[in-house]
């Protein structure tokens, strides 16, 4: 087995083992279930930003597309979890296709602004159509609706394994992309899109595919979050949720498969422990982020790859 495959499958196995061996306390088990789902969101973001070099400031749109497609279909249409997931998947593909097609008419800073604007439109729509979405208040998905293949997804242990399963699929998919010729073309576009064009690649089409893959993974993360944690709210469509995946990816290492996981764990626990110390925890978080930026500007895993392990995908 190649060493990069070994490391990534090893990371998944370790996360299974931590639960099987009962090493997690209830508190950390809940935290990690949340981190794993949010990491899936980070993986989606990383495909677009880390591999293709397109910086989106509106990814909360894709996350909330999956979140609301799953949540509203369960709440209003009595869909079961399987049906809700399929709908969320299809809706995420459609939203990514449309937004990608429109936003990719711009480049650079304009792309950032356009994606931000689209995401703000979605956020305001969620608030405006409060009769359906329940606006700021959000929707609570009842425990009885969160059953999949006779498994109660609200049970903390089942929730953890479910989050880990979704995470594992997305991580392996991301690894496949990173090792495939498709992934190399994305990297080539990130490095020099003109050059990729000169080699005969339809750069615009590859970028669109990257938006669709990225948006769909983000949508799957949103749907999983709503179903596993039972809450669908407008705050997930707001600007901070577009910034979080950027931070996780930057902290962990843009363009590395495990980077989003490392970034999400780091950020989550940094906030958690800092808020124990002081109410002004964001000062500590800010200083820590500053230090990481100064001394590991490629992110934690990105720096390790640059210095010691250039084979890490």
């Amino acid at each position, binding site marked *: 087995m190649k060493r990069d495959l070994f490391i990534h499958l090893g990371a998944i196995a370790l996360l299974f083992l931590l639960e099987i061996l009962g090493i997690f306390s209830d508190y950390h088990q809940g935290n990690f279930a949340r981190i794993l789902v949010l990491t899936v969101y980070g993986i989606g973001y990383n495909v677009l930003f880390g591999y293709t070099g397109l910086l989106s400031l509106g990814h909360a749109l894709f996350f909330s597309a999956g979140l609301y497609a799953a949540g509203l279909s369960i709440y209003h249409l009595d869909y079961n979890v399987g049906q809700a997931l399929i709908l969320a998947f299809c809706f995420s593909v459609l939203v990514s296709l449309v937004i990608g097609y429109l936003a990719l008419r711009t480049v650079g800073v304009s792309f950032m602004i356009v994606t931000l604007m689209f995401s703000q439109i979605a956020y305001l729509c969620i608030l405006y159509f409060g009769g359906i979405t329940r606006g700021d208040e959000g929707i609570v998905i009842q425990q009885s609706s969160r059953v999949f293949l006779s498994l109660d997804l609200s049970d903390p242990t089942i929730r953890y394994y479910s989050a880990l399963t979704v995470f594992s699929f997305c991580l392996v998919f991301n690894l496949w992309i990173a090792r495939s*010729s498709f992934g190399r073309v994305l990297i080539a576009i990130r490095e020099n899109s003109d*050059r*990729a064009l000169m*080699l*005969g*690649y339809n750069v615009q089409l590859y970028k669109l595919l990257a938006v669709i893959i990225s948006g769909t993974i983000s949508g799957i993360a949103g749907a999983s979050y709503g179903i596993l944690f039972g809450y669908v709210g407008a705050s997930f469509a707001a600007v901070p949720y577009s910034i979080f995946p950027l931070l996780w990816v930057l902290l962990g290492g843009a363009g590395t498969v495990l980077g989003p996981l490392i970034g999400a764990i780091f950020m989550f626990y940094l906030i958690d422990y800092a808020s124990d110390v002081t109410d002004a925890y964001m000062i500590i978080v800010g200083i820590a982020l500053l230090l990481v930026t100064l001394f590991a500007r490629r992110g934690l895993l990105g720096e390790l790859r640059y210095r010691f392990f250039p084979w890490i995908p």
Partner: protein
Amino acid sequence: MLEVSNLSTYYSNIKILKDISFTVQRGEVLCLLGRNGAGKTTTLKSIMGLVDKVEGNINFNNERISKISAHLVPKKGIGYVPQGRRLFSELTVEENLEIGLLTRKNGEQTINKVLEMFPRLNERLKQVSGTLSGGEQQMLALARALCIEPTLLLLDEPTEGLQPSMISLIRKSVLELKKQGVAILLVEQRVEAILSIADKIIVIENGAIVFSSTAQKIKNNPKKLYRFIGV
């Protein structure tokens, strides 16, 4: 093979190339000479479809390519090595070559053939291309363009900034390609770099052709050429 007729190119509304016409045949090396800003690189970019507004005709193997999308041009068999190499610096030598291949079948065979031409790259397959020396980067840029098995190769100042041993290696490769029947359109600023390999020479000034001749005639009477390029 390549037939450029009355080519005019615009950046915004400014006319950069003015009614340029020339042809390049199979196994022929045509050299474009001229000062900085004369329009040499713009000519290559126009052929590759990388310029928005182009007038006139560019035909390749009797097919009009001046109106097709830029990503389709290499698929017609035209390779381009731009000035400054422009490698994918975070990818390895091997990955850079594979990227060049992806639109063609028989990949491994093609790469092996290209590596035979540049054995030094064979020793550095797993090395990240950004860490190669300038000469090796130029070799890789050329090798990558050859991975699409071009029948026409556009080279933009391939010897710029290289040490003499590398220059002679690049020159040898160009001659080898010429022998294999590849048509080559070569942009250079230095006359001495091209006299031994060019068949035809064109001098561009302010976007227009001001002089054209065969290399043989120039060799016999180089003063004619020097008058235009001010050496």
